[in-house]
């Protein structure tokens, strides 16, 4: 009974402790302990869900369409586990990477706020609840992105803030319209009403358009992605690593949830839109990335491109397509976060991320070079890393569902990704240091043991996800089958 609310209660307990405890050191230790606990709970949920398909919990013992439902199916459990993995790595990394001043001012309180929002969104079975968790996550991210209030952060914060607020307004307006027409907010109940009545209220379509636009802004899909590259390179590196791993993925998670519950009734209308959103995000993200010369900006544009892969997987709307999308989502979370973490180390050593003045980082520390190699070439899709399995599955699903053109584009985009990653690799790690400041190269390296630990955790996960892809894909296929079987979800919630 405590199991399902636990991923929400746990960060809540940490927030209370962070408010009551004063010492920075205690906060750091507590945050690592709590993120380990969170991973353990996510693991237990994953294990349980794998046994029994779905588990749910009714808040306050109110029955399903009236009370708030928390539900975990395989997809949510998988996302919970991957986000717990990302979070634990980022927490360990932050303890060393974030300056003392920020930790003293309760940096960890806000990261746990984000964790609470993310976990809540994955578990929410009620559409307004989903909105509330989105907002919890957003409040945490608003504060973290402007935390410290440096000049560069302010601009990123303002763009991030305004566009994300607009997306929330879209989402909430959609909820208002839907509630006015359907009189219910429980997603399963709404889906059932749509499925059984067969008739759709006149305002159904606008509500869905508002939802999709809201989620597309949150997930940084093609016409709505501008806030992401404008803001992700501004905060401290640990913060952008956390954002890259968790935030956009929640938007995509909600899009998949909404699509498999409601939108598939209007396949003829939504499928081409989703497909083209995916293709354009993929292509435009990767092409704009090639022209950038800031380490984190290249990676930010790649987030857009990678999100496109997930969305085309959804648009194929077959079991293999959805399974590929889920696998890719998981792979992208860990690989992207790890790449941002390496960027954080480079920033710590050189105080800049402009690739034109960087160089010879491989000589400085070989291990970080290897870690970047693993995450970058996992993003590009080289075997035996997780990205290879993800891309292979997406392209295979595309060919199987007669989207050969899309599969070709995906292959082509993979080539460009490889180009960008090679560019970073050469510019940052290989080429001679253009500043020719010999003293700079010989300065003693700053301590980075904990940062390294965080990054190694993710690198090992990337390799593991690539090598043991078969059981994970099998799990994702089951998750996809559950997603496509809407009736099962409805029956489980409303029984």
């Amino acid at each position, binding site marked *: *009974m*405590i199991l399902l*609310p636990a991923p929400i*209660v746990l960060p*809540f*307990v940490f*927030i*209370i*402790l962070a*408010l*009551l405890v004063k010492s920075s050191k205690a906060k750091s230790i507590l945050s690592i302990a709590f993120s380990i606990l969170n991973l353990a709970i996510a693991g237990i949920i994953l294990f349980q869900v794998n046994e029994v398909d779905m588990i749910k*919990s*009714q*808040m*306050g*013992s109110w029955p399903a369409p009236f009370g708030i439902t928390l539900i975990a199916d395989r997809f949510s459990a998988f996302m919970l586990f991957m986000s717990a993995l990302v979070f634990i790595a980022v927490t360990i990394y932050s303890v060393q990477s974030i300056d003392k001043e920020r930790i003293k001012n309760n940096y960890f309180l806000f990261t746990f706020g984000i964790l609470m929002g993310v976990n809540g969104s994955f578990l929410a079975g009620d559409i307004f609840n989903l909105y509330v968790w989105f907002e919890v996550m957003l409040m945490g991210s608003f504060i973290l992105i402007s935390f410290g209030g440096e000049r560069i952060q302010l601009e990123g914060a303002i763009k991030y803030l305004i566009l994300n607020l607009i997306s929330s307004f879209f989402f909430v307006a959609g909820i208002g319209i839907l509630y006015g027409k359907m009189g219910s907010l429980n997603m399963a109940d709404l889906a059932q009403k749509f499925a059984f009545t067969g008739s759709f209220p006149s305002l159904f379509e606008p509500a869905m358009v508002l939802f999709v636009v809201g989620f597309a802004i949150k997930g940084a899909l093609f016409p709505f992605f501008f806030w992401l590259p404008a803001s992700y390179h501004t905060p401290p590196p640990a913060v952008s690593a956390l954002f890259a791993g968790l935030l956009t993925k929640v938007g995509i998670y909600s899009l998949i949830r909404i699509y498999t519950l409601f939108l598939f009734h209007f396949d003829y209308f939504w499928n081409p839109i989703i497909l083209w959103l995916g293709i354009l995000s993929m292509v435009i993200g990767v092409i704009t990335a090639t022209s950038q010369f800031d380490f984190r900006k290249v990676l930010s544009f790649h987030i857009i491109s990678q999100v496109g892969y997930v969305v085309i997987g959804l648009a194929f709307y077959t079991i293999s397509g959805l399974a590929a999308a889920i696998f890719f989502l998981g792979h992208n979370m860990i690989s992207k976060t790890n790449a941002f973490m390496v960027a954080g180390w480079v920033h710590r050593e050189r105080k800049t991320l402009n690739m034109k003045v960087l160089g010879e980082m491989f000589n400085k520390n070989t291990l970080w070079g290897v870690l970047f190699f693993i995450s970058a070439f996992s993003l590009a899709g080289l075997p035996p890393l997780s990205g290879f399995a993800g891309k292979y599955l997406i392209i295979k699903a595309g060919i199987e569902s007669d989207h050969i053109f899309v599969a070709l584009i995906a292959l082509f985009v993979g080539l460009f990704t490889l180009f960008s990653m090679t560019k970073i690799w050469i510019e940052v790690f290989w080429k001679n240091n253009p500043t020719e400041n010999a003293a700079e190269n010989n300065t003693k390296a700053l301590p980075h043991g904990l940062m390294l630990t965080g990054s190694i955790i993710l690198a090992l996960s990337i390799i593991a996800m690539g090598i043991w892809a078969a059981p994970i894909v099998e799990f994702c296929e089951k998750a996809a089958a559950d997603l496509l079987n809407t009736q099962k979800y409805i029956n489980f919630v409303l029984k």
Partner: protein
Amino acid sequence: MRNIILEKIVSLFLKVMLIFAIYLLLRGHNNPGGGFIAAIIASTGFVFYAIIYGTKKVEKMLHLSTHQWMGIGLLLVLISTLLPLFFSKEIQTGLWIPSDFPVLGLLSLGTPLLFDTGVFVTVSGVILTIILSIMEVLEWN
């Protein structure tokens, strides 16, 4: 500049606001009212007090820092949320203590009241944090 009339009125105003807030807090759940509204009203009293007496005096009156009050409020919320677990019910289920006091009559004591009290303390803490820190930055005193 000290203004003795204003000072007396404000300290009286604070007491009135606090009593009204507690009335609204206890009235909640079965009637319009509740923790959030009560907290807004209580913190209005404190804000007026801070405008006249300065923020230091309010901080002294609260004994703990506003952050700690937030923490305590959230702790009450957490307790009320998790208490039903020990009676093997889903979390947040309302638990009621049957109470029929000789003088006070029938009181509805239970986890919803605890939850509302937690909300009251938290929201007061949040609003006071916001306003007091803005006043400190603007050097209101």
